[in-house]
């Protein structure tokens, strides 16, 4: 049975829907990447699935329960979330951030229990931020900060992990590092991972299934080898590219067909 069952989901903000009638089933233990142009609805879908948006229609069932009818506290035990990287305002230490992941499993006035401390330590170990635990967020690099927030989501101890553009603003070495950690969580911990991602090559290297959104609807869906084609990229992104197989991994690789793209008028659609 699907762990995330999305049925005819439309969602958006005050001024209307951004995604329209999306239906998807995500199986337990899957690693899924949601791809598409800016404004295609990737982040909207990630947020709507965990009831973070006010304007929704349709149904999302997670592990047998209707997401739109659950309290935040109960939902937090099922779905953990890594938001887009933002500038920290207050100087929390890494360990304090990770402990916040235990919120839904603690009483409001309770201090960290042994189970909480164990979960925090384990989350920091898996994301390799243990040595940084006393550091403030502002003292960390982008990659370290992203790992700290993944650790916070892990401390939540939920089977599903949703991420909103985890590679955004990161150098290529950190992108690989973050996705390597996610892959490890899928393989060793059985986590179901759904990540909105703008980098197709990165997603193809780690996810088993790609879902391409265009103007808020699913435009293509399937394994990287099936979905990444010159025709699909032209259709969805409006870019002319060449695709070939990586000689080592056999994964599809995108190379820009320079010159052909530069003169094409890019259709404007969507929002930032």
């Amino acid at each position, binding site marked *: 049975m699907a762990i995330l069952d999305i049925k005819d989901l439309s969602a958006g903000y005050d001024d209307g829907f951004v995604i329209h009638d999306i239906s998807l089933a995500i199986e337990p233990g899957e690693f899924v990447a949601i791809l598409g142009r800016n404004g295609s609805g990737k982040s909207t879908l990630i947020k709507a699935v965990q009831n973070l948006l006010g304007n929704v229609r349709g149904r999302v069932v997670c592990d047998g329960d209707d997401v739109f009818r659950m*309290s935040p*506290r109960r939902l937090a035990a099922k779905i953990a979330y890594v938001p887009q990287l933002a500038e920290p*305002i207050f100087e929390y230490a890494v360990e304090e951030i990770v402990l916040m992941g235990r919120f839904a499993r603690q009483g409001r006035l309770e201090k960290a229990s042994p189970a909480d401390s164990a979960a925090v330590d384990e989350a920091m170990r898996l994301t390799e931020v243990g040595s940084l635990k006393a550091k403030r967020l502002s003292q960390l690099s982008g990659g370290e900060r992203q790992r700290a927030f993944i650790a916070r989501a892990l401390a939540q101890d939920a089977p599903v992990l949703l991420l909103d553009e985890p590679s955004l603003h990161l150098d290529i070495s950190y992108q690989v590092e973050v996705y390597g950690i996610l892959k490890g969580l899928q393989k060793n911990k059985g986590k179901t991972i759904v990540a909105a991602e703008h980098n197709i090559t990165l997603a193809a290297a780690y996810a088993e299934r790609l879902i391409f959104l265009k103007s808020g609807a699913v435009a293509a869906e399937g394994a990287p080898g099936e979905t990444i084609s010159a025709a699909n990229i032209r259709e969805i992104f409006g870019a002319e590219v060449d695709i070939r197989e990586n000689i080592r991994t056999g994964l599809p690789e995108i190379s820009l067909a320079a010159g052909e793209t530069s003169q094409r008028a890019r259709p404007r659609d969507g929002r930032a």
Partner: protein
Amino acid sequence: MSRKTGRRLFWVVCLAACLVGFLLSILTGPVKTTPGDLLRFIQNHDRVQAAIFIDLRLSRAVLAFLVGAALALSGAILQGYFRNPMADPFVVGVSSGASLGAVIAASLGFEAAAFGFSGPGLLAFISGLGVVSLVYVLSLRRGGFKIETILLTGIAAGALASALTSFFLFMRSDSYDQAVFWLLGSFQLAEWRQAATIAPWFVLCFVAALWLAKDMDLLALGDEAAQALGCPVPRVRKAFLAMSALLAALSVAVSGVIGFVGLVVPHWVRILIGPGHRALFASSALAGGTFLLYCDLLARNLLAGELPIGVITAAVGAPFFLYLLHKKR
């Protein structure tokens, strides 16, 4: 020094300073008294001395402490609420709204009093809460509101209230002396009834703030992230806004608008003990109360007459604030 040791040191220093502050407040005033007098009073319960020590001086010290604690807690809540260390009760319009009410009442000679509040105090309380409610309603959008909207609406409403305040001052310049009391704050009119009126509300807000302190930690890193971690964001936000407005409006109602405490005290405390809101709320209240106790001592004793306390809070607070900011870099 770890944050835990720092926190303990902070509490010890603050508590000691607070006790000394109360003692000094009880011993100083127009009538010369010595520690010996105080000891003798404790043994003999002389009526005249009871009037001086308990009814005049202790009531004033208690009120100053309560107001300082309330303002600092209100500021600490709003800084977390807006994720902005520059926020204070002025940004949502409570302080400006309350000034307007007080000045209108003063210029119209509105004298009706209740619950230990004077006429202007009562009107200050009502108009302070009124302006926040207005700001809140104007900021509402379908599907909740954005904090940027409420911040900007609050600033606009505050500016409007200030303009009206100036207008009333200009039209009725004969009420100027009384208006200064409300615009810069003072504990000259302190009495036990006022302390008794605001104490239960302060305690209620204090306990509620501690109860929701973990939620505020989550909010500090984004509303969506907070909700995903299990915090019922809209309800928590409403509760915090109501608490901070009530604390600020009550403070203004008994002592006029005292600036800087709500902005500066939580900021100092955060630099010293870290951003965790449970410790921050409790420590801000203690430090704010202690700070205002000493400011009131200065206001009473610096010159022959009494200075408005708002002058002292800014004059003492600003340099110390700058020092801490630069030391941190």
